[in-house]
């Protein structure tokens, strides 16, 4: 693996994922996003585009590995779990309200009642992830 877990810390107040905690972390992040700068400044051909895709796949796998192993004690884990749960509930509430509003609006305007399938798939995927997690936790914890 390329990056080290000690270079990063859990992102608490500005989204999800990791945040650099040391200068090495900042260098790593800059190197990781440098292809985006190249893409925005120059015209890329298929070969360069392919190389950039490979670059992002490698760094995405590396980042995922760091995210799993970033140092967290039990208090951090508890705080993270509560914060993620609250974020999920807010996302679900906004999605459900939005879908209900759109459905009501469509029906009121005499249009076909339509819900974006991506939203339904996301909710079903979340449901499966929750069930699988609870199953695993019941068995192993």
């Amino acid at each position, binding site marked *: 693996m390329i990056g080290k877990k000690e270079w990063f810390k859990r992102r608490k107040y500005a989204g999800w994922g990791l945040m650099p905690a040391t200068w090495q972390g900042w260098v790593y992040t800059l190197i990781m996003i440098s292809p985006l700068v190249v893409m925005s400044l120059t015209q890329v051909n298929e070969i360069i585009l392919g190389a950039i895709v490979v670059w992002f796949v490698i760094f995405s796998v590396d980042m995922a590995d760091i995210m799993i192993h970033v140092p967290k*004690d039990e*208090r*951090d884990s508890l705080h993270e779990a509560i914060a993620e749960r609250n974020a999920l509930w807010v996302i679900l509430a906004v999605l459900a309200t939005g879908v209900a509003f759109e459905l009501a609006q469509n029906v009121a305007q005499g249009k076909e009642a339509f819900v974006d399938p991506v939203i339904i798939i996301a909710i079903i995927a979340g449901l499966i992830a929750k069930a699988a997690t609870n199953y695993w936790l019941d068995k192993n914890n």
Partner: protein
Amino acid sequence: MKTNISELRKKFGITQEELAEKAGVTRQTIISLEAGRYNPSLLLAHKISMVLKQKHIEDVFVIK
């Protein structure tokens, strides 16, 4: 939960940072424990008691 971590730490001349490192947690967790804001797991309570050379967990953590 009330704790005697701060008093025991001072008695043995251990800083919050040192205790955190030995117990495998962050300094922030030690600060929260000392302030009685965080209830630790049994494992962490045991580790901290050992670092502070206490045989019994209840000598470090007192349920109010």
